[in-house]
């Protein structure tokens, strides 16, 4: 197997290297790639979409259709992880462990036993050696809001600076995942329930595709944001910019929710217990 792998890899590499002979040099401004299609993006973006960030414009408008399916890919990955891993109604263990937060004492509760309801002094743990780290938890509590704020900024400012739905969405998702890691999955799930999360995934993509479909209903082609002008009450160019913004929000929601969903399923093997 190793030999074959080596041979195949070398063959493929040799073929590809052989092809580079006819490639333009690196950064060659005269290469077809930089002269055939892209110049229009660079020169016309501003007046066609009034979005200074060409990447965002191309991503969400010129090739917005790709991006919609890109979001769909993420979404379907989330669904696949869910359908593969999620186990419903995993039977409660005979006895569950609780830790008394203030003293750090661990207590066993037999099945049917009850800890004092609505008291934050106890937290559920799955194994005895689950560490309890006050510093990490506190730091994360402080950090997470800023992370999320930054995520929102990245989404919102995608028009003018590097950024956009994906980046922002990932940051938002990461903030929640950080929370889940620093505390435990149950606590995180109490913040964002599984169902809400799954619905958010669908909603995010739906915002994107729905915007496109709306353009279609308004009489122009699919994803032709210019059609939104009549609704938003602006000129078509600005409508494009706004349309891009709307779909970026959709992307952000979808990516965030899916990241969380995948993490939840993978980290807890679909049991939705303590997690990592």
């Amino acid at each position, binding site marked *: 197997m190793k030999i074959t792998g080596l041979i195949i890899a070398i063959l*493929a590499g040799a*073929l590809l290297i052989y*092809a580079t002979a006819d490639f333009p040099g690196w950064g060659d401004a005269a290469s*077809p*790639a930089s002269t055939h299609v892209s110049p229009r993006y660079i020169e016309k973006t501003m007046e066609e979409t009034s979005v200074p960030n060409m990447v965002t414009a191309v991503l969400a408008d010129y090739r917005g259709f790709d991006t919609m399916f890109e979001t769909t890919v993420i979404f379907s990955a989330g669904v*696949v992880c869910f359908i593969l891993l999620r186990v419903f109604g995993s039977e409660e263990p005979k006895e569950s462990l609780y830790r008394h937060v203030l003293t750090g004492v661990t207590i066993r509760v037999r099945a049917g036993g009850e800890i004092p309801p609505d008291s934050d002094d106890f937290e559920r743990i799955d194994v005895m050696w689950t560490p309890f780290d006050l510093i990490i938890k506190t730091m994360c509590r402080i950090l997470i809001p800023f992370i999320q704020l930054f995520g929102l900024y990245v989404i919102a400012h995608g028009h003018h600076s590097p950024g956009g739905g994906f980046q922002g969405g990932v940051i938002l998702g990461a903030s929640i995942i950080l929370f889940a890691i620093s505390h435990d999955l149950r606590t995180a799930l109490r913040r964002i329930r599984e169902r809400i999360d*799954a619905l958010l995934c*669908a909603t995010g993509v739906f915002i994107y595709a729905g915007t496109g479909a709306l353009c279609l209903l308004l009489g122009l*082609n699919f994803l032709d944001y210019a059609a939104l002008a009549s609704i938003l009450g602006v000129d078509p160019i600005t409508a494009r910019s706004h349309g891009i913004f709307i779909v970026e929000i959709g992307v952000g929601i979808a990516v965030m929710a899916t990241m969380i969903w995948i993490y939840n399923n993978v980290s807890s093997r679909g049991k939705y217990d303590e997690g990592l």
Partner: protein
Amino acid sequence: MSEQYPALLVVVPLLSALLISAAGWLKKRLCFPIAVVALGVAAYASIGLLIRVLNEGVIIYRLGGWPPPWGIAYYVDHLNGLVLAVVSVVAFINLIASQKSIEEEFPEKTGAFYTLYVLMVTGLLGIVVTGDAFNLYVLLEIASLTGYGLIAMGQKDRAPLASLNYLYMGTIGACFYLLGVGYLYIVTGSLNMVDIARILPPLYQSKAVLTAFIICMVGVWLKMALFPLHAWLPNAYTYAPSASSSLIAPLMTKVMIYVMIRLILTVFTPQFAFSNLAISNSIVWLAVLAIVMGAILALAQTNLKKMLTYVIIAEVGYMVGGAWLGNRAGMTGAILHIVNDALMTLCAFMVVSNIVYKVKGYAFEDLKGLLRKMPFTMGAFVIGALSIIGVPPTCGFFSKWYLISGALKAGHYGFMVALLFSSLVNVVLFFRVLEISYYEPFSNHHVGDHHPEPMAEAPLTMLVPLIIVAAGLVLVGLYTGDIVNHIIQFAIPKGIV
């Protein structure tokens, strides 16, 4: 509205997939109806499209209103019009047929399953309809990812591993394709298929184009499981749940064949593929190898589903060989066989899912006495078998006819012999199965009833679609003349004679 069909074709399933996944959390009962409506609309739109293409010729749809090559555009011509119709119809029929088995196998995850199902169909339709090389890659990934999920839901102990291996191979294939597109982009600066084709001719001698062609082909072959790149397919298709295998087995490989033909015909024109490169002959020999090996390996199997998967591998050989014969008859046969093989495979796998639904197994010994116990299912199986063997008037005969006459025209007798050989082997394969189900008395260790009622057919929702498909096999066979004269003939450029 009809000018929006190209978009609706893909967007309606996509939106409804989202609705389904929402419904899965809010109101499970709605999932199936939404899916049915979505695929129904898709089928309607695709057939409408086909009719429009027949009347008006190529349809170009600019997504986002941007002109190609700057924006992404859909090109619908006779070739993918036909394939679209097949894909959507097959998916629709199979959806209806597999409702029962889905709800039996995944009681609490039906929502997610239907979501994946519809998403996969979206991906396949998108692959077929798009005119943009990179967009094709994205949709390919959607179809593949959902496919991995759908397959891995099968038998607990084997399916995940099979699906994982499929994922490795599939990813390599998709990455090769992506690389090829990149190579094309670097020398042409465009991603739009037609635009690339326009720019390429002066570059035919370029090493980069040659490499791009090769790695694109290898990638596609990996995806369509052309021997010897087929290793992932049998397990993946065998251990998948009935509903998935009867969706993926008919469609995935065929769509990849379509992609190959599209690359040959549209992107790298036939002139480049057949004339400039002197490889077509050796590729036909590869196809011959695929056919022979597929047939032999199929003989070695002891359970129905796996046997069928090897039959699929042989069929892939048919189409690749036909396409690479480089003449009109062969190409016609290949395209016609995309349609026929999709239907044949659908028929066969629907039979398998009916059997699995009733007797909980598909090994040969589970088939004892089924001809008496499930006469209609097995009757449909007989028709499917005849079509795969290639007996008139079932459609399989006619595509084989075109393929062989293509081989004769090209003077490639090896391919002709391989086709006849595989027909004979298919006779043995299916006759063996039928013998077991005809002579041996019914006995089943899964269900355990040794004194069964004389007839225990699958429920009507599974039976009626199956019978429709079986009838379709004959009808398509009888209308082959029209299909060829009015559709396929225009799908093949004048250059090929």
